[in-house]
């Protein structure tokens, strides 16, 4: 009888609903983030799932020039669950809302978002007050690109170059390098997202911990790419693990296909997708450019850090096969890059007059150095290896490391380039016929 009574009590307890206090959450913003309004809103209101403390400066609304446009202090209504601030009549333009309230449990919650009156607002990452990427953010992005290259290039190398000739030692190192790449991509992706959020919020990290990141995650291309890439890399990590656990390299094919697909997400979140003149051709070229660069850099890393130290017997064949693959992907990378430069730089003088052009020149110089190095390998080392000489040479090993280092430096400049805006395209002059008409 007693066990039955206990079971019945447990079932009743499980069935009963209850209320509990958790962290306060923002439920609704009026106007909402990224909203394009037809007319000026009377106020900005934020509804929370529980009461919050609101201060007079809890909600600040600024125009794109930084002018405060609120018509009075912020205050709480509706049982302290809504924080609101009245607004002046807003002219056409984009507006930034910065808010902070204190929840009843003592946490300072904050957020930033943008809306537009008769204009499409900029993303929250370009809210009034945000300063743009810092040097640290560039370094994080560089690490991210490097991680991506280690995963995608490593997978391509393992499948297309090494194939069935792999040895346990090569596989052990391959999985180690690929794991480093996938973990770096996940962690640096999260760090990059937080750094971008900190810039948009203009808050120290200590206060950012209770920042509402949903407008950034759900209202920007950058946020969508963050979601897409984080989930994608988690899945690639799982597939890599499964391939290692079950000794089935065939599973690496879907991981490679998925990795290449993820690179398209990076292209769609970059400037190639939003700049004037962008089209499916520029997005495709961007994807080809990034994919080819990843295969080249990641493959070089595999040759230098996996095959050369771990499998002397494989060196010759791996070098020759990678040489063929690298020739193709570097060709694709250069053609796609040249096309993108042609589209993004309307005038040749932009190369030395605009910041984007200068960074592109630096990148092109580094690529030229890496290509010369590759050519040296192709025309000097390759024939020697074909004749069965040089597989034990330390000079080749050091030379491979050198080419890898230059290729990695190219990625660093690429990290700076993706955040630089290409120069605006000049307005088309009306034709003489149009002027006469």
């Amino acid at each position, binding site marked *: 009888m007693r066990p039955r009574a206990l079971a019945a009590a447990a079932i009743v307890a499980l069935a009963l609903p209850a209320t509990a*206090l958790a962290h306060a959450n923002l439920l609704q913003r009026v106007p909402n983030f990224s909203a394009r309004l037809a007319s000026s809103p009377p106020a900005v209101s934020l509804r929370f799932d529980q009461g919050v403390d609101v201060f007079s400066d809890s909600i600040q609304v600024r125009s794109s020039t930084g002018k405060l446009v609120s018509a009075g202090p912020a205050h709480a209504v509706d049982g302290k669950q809504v924080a609101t601030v009245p607004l002046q009549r807003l002219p056409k333009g984009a507006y930034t809302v910065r808010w902070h309230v204190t929840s009843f*449990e003592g946490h300072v919650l904050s957020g930033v978002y943008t809306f537009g009156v008769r204009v499409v607002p900029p993303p929250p990452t370009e809210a009034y007050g945000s300063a743009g990427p810092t040097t640290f953010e560039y370094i994080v992005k560089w690490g991210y690109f490097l991680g991506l290259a280690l995963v995608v290039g490593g997978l391509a190398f393992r499948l297309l170059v090494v194939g069935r000739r792999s040895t346990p030692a090569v596989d052990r190192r391959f999985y180690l390098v690929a794991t480093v790449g996938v973990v770096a991509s996940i962690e640096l992706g999260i760090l990059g997202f937080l750094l971008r959020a900190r810039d948009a919020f203009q808050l120290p990290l200590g206060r950012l911990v209770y920042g509402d990141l949903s407008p950034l995650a759900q209202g920007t291309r950058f946020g969508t790419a963050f979601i897409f890439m*984080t989930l994608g890399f988690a899945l690639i990590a799982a597939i890599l693990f499964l391939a290692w656990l079950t000794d089935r390299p065939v599973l690496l094919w879907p991981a490679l296909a998925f990795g290449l697909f993820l690179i398209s997400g990076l292209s769609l979140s970059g400037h190639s997708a939003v700049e004037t003149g962008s089209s499916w051709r520029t997005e495709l070229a961007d994807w080809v450019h990034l994919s080819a660069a990843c295969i080249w850099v990641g493959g070089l890393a595999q040759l230098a850090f996996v095959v050369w130290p771990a499998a002397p017997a494989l060196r010759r064949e791996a070098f020759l096969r990678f040489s063929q693959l690298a020739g193709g992907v570097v060709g694709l990378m250069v053609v796609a890059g040249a096309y993108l430069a042609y589209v993004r730089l309307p005038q040749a003088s932009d190369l030395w007059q605009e910041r984007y052009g200068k960074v592109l020149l630096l990148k092109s110089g580094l690529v030229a150095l890496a290509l010369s190095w590759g050519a040296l390998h192709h025309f000097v080392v390759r024939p020697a290896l074909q004749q069965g000489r040089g597989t034990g040479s330390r000079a080749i090993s050091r030379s491979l490391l050198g080419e890898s280092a230059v290729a990695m430096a190219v990625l660093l400049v690429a990290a700076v380039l993706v955040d630089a805006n290409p120069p605006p395209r000049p307005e088309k002059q009306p034709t003489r016929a149009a002027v006469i008409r």
Partner: protein
Amino acid sequence: MEPPAEVVHWLFGTGFVFLGLCLLAETIVGHEVWRRRSWRAYVWPAVAFLMGIAMWPVMVFYTSSAIHMLAHGVWAQAMMIAGAAQLGLVRGKLRSSLWELTMPLAFAVSGAAFLIHEQNPWLFSRAAFLHHALGWTALAGALITIARFVRPRSPVFNTGFALIFLAVATLLFCDRNVAPIFGHLSPLAGGR
């Protein structure tokens, strides 16, 4: 589009119940009997690994605060690493028994994430109580799994290991706005 947070907590609670019951069954019937079917050895590590993967969507879609996002990311990685190490050991891909220590590490990191994530004292609110309880339960789990590493055949430590997962599940069922355990709580609780 996203399900309510409490529903997600209950889903993970269900996963922990399954995990805990598998471990309890293994302790009751004994290691040898449990592993008469070789696939059974993979069940709980695979569940832990899959729960780690399933935590990633929670991390990226529930971004109402940065600390929640980071905490869920930590739990995702802790579960994936602990599950993966156990799978590697079962499969024979990992030889060193030191890999068993990934489990206490995962518990310790998860517990620390709970405690750092909650800044208020135990009795401030129900959420604060649950976060503290989950954090200390996970830290207790870390100690039990270290003891289990030293004495892997001990029925006490193996039972403790299983019960930790059941305790975590119970606490997860209690969490959030509409909780199915512990009945009604005054809306004034924790308020000022």
